[in-house]
């Protein structure tokens, strides 16, 4: 539990790391707007290419970023198929009668077992998933033997393919943008950047510095609390508790027996922490100086130029 990484921050060098978090936050928002203004696949591909060049210049590992995005691949796949299935514009590209028959069901079951077995290898999981989906498609399309339960016509339209590619690339670029932000910015810097950007909200009574303090304290205590949960679970397991097996009722009981001590400890902890903060002269709402300082440097000026010109370019493309 000691090596848990909060957010996805990965220590490293390069200009992304030197940038002021405020530039990065505003930049990501502005570039997302710019991406949404683009209308064609070539434009998006150019944007993606520029992004990749920036990542290489910033000495970011593309492999590492792809890894950071992995949880979102499912979203990409889902978006892709959603567009293909439901967009019915343009000329027909492919039309196939899909049949659910004894043979195709058998094949699908076999494929599923094979897929789950191979997935245990924990490699090429994405390719495996694609292969599995293709296998299911071909069994439905060509294995119409034996008793037939149902059959339907599956049509792919030109515009559907176009849109799905468009939407997927757009999503990919946007996810990449936010991944770069979280990968190169420490959670603390991120909260401090947000705090600084939200400072004008003081006019409407939102105190951004206290908000930032709450976030940073929560961030600081997450690993401690996880650590504690582990210790309590180990202590209970050594007295015979089993968190994995047993009936639902037993499991619920186990979980409660974990949560109760955790809450008690957390309350005690927050009381102690409040004492420690108070005796170190913390008074909510009072003026205080800050040790960490955000600095707008040369890199930020260049980045701002880049961001502004990208945004301008996509506005021009949109208007033309």
């Amino acid at each position: 539990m000691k090596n848990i990484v909060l957010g996805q921050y990965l220590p490293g060098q390069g200009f992304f790391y030197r940038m002021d978090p405020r530039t990065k936050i505003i930049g990501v928002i502005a570039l997302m707007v710019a991406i949404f203004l683009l209308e064609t696949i070539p434009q998006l591909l150019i944007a993606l290419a520029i992004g990749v060049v920036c990542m290489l210049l910033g000495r970011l590992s593309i492999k590492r970023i792809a890894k950071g995005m992995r949880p979102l691949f499912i979203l990409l796949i889902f978006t892709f198929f959603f567009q293909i299935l439901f967009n019915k514009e343009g000329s027909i590209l492919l039309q196939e009668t899909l049949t659910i028959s004894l043979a195709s069901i058998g094949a699908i079951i076999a494929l599923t077992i094979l897929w789950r077995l191979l997935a245990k290898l924990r490699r090429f999981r994405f390719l495996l998933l694609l292969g599995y989906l293709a296998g299911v498609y071909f069994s439905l399309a060509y294995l119409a033997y034996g008793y037939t339960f149902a059959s339907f016509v599956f049509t792919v339209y030109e515009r559907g393919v176009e849109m799905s590619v468009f939407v997927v690339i757009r999503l990919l670029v946007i996810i990449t943008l936010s991944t770069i932000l979280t990968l190169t910015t420490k959670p603390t810097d991120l909260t401090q950047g947000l705090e600084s950007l939200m400072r004008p909200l003081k006019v409407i009574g939102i105190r951004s510095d206290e908000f930032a303090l709450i976030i940073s304290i929560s961030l600081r205590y997450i690993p401690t609390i996880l650590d504690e949960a582990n210790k309590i679970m180990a202590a209970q397991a050594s007295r015979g508790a089993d968190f994995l097996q047993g009936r639902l009722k037993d499991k619920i009981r186990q979980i409660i027996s974990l949560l109760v001590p955790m809450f008690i400890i957390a309350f005690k902890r927050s009381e102690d922490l409040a004492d420690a903060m108070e005796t170190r002269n913390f008074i909510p709402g009072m003026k205080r100086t800050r040790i960490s300082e955000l600095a707008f440097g040369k890199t930020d000026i260049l980045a701002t130029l880049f961001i502004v010109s990208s945004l301008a370019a996509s506005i021009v493309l949109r208007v033309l």
Partner: protein
Amino acid sequence: MSHIDIRDMSFTYTGKRMILKDINLQIEQGEWVAILGHNGSGKSTLAKTLVGLLEPAQGTVAIAGTIITPETTPAIRKQIGIVFQNPDNQFVGVTVRDDIAFGMENLCVSREEMLERIAFFAKKVGMEKYLDKEPASLSGGQKQRVAIAGILAMQTGIMIFDEATSMLDPYAREDLMKYIRQLHQEGLTIIMITHEIEEALLADRLVIMKEGKIFADGRKEELLKQPEVFAQSALVMPLALQMAMQLDDEATFGEVKAFLWESTFAK
């Protein structure tokens, strides 16, 4: 008028059982006081009343002539620094640097000054290489060192250490004690709550607590002449002192050996 002046003070958490009973304690500016006592004798509770975290049920606590009340606590706290028992529950910052800075930030110390003091005090507690580390990647003793540095950096006139060195290794402890001795010589008031009798003996004055009362209070030379005080409050005297007291000047080597054997294994 004493620097720290506790008069007829009692305290209760629940309203029923008194945890502190009729405490009278006067500590002068520049004194180094060690507070000893068994678990649950009320040492931490007493320390918390000194910084206005707990309000006495009866009696008063005054610091430099000002009685602690909710109105006066903010000003009084600027004069007192306290390191608590559990290092995990007082780490406020996200990194070591942030945590050492926290108290100074609240005192509105300028950034340059903070960086200077952080460098100085991190070095004092041997944590200068860990300034960018998060608390989750530190050991208990390291967290204790950070907590101590954070309080030292506030440069208050009174410092209270509540078993603040319990997890330090002997070398770190010795370094810290040297520094505290230096602070003491510069005129700071030091209150050290501890179970380590060797550590307590660095102080000028010992206060022994028992069941919420002050059981004994005096200069260490005088208290050490009364072994029964230690025995009655479940404290073990250092072996060297026991030997010095129980063996006479003409003790033979055989007697010394027998004494050592007795006190080490025959309990």
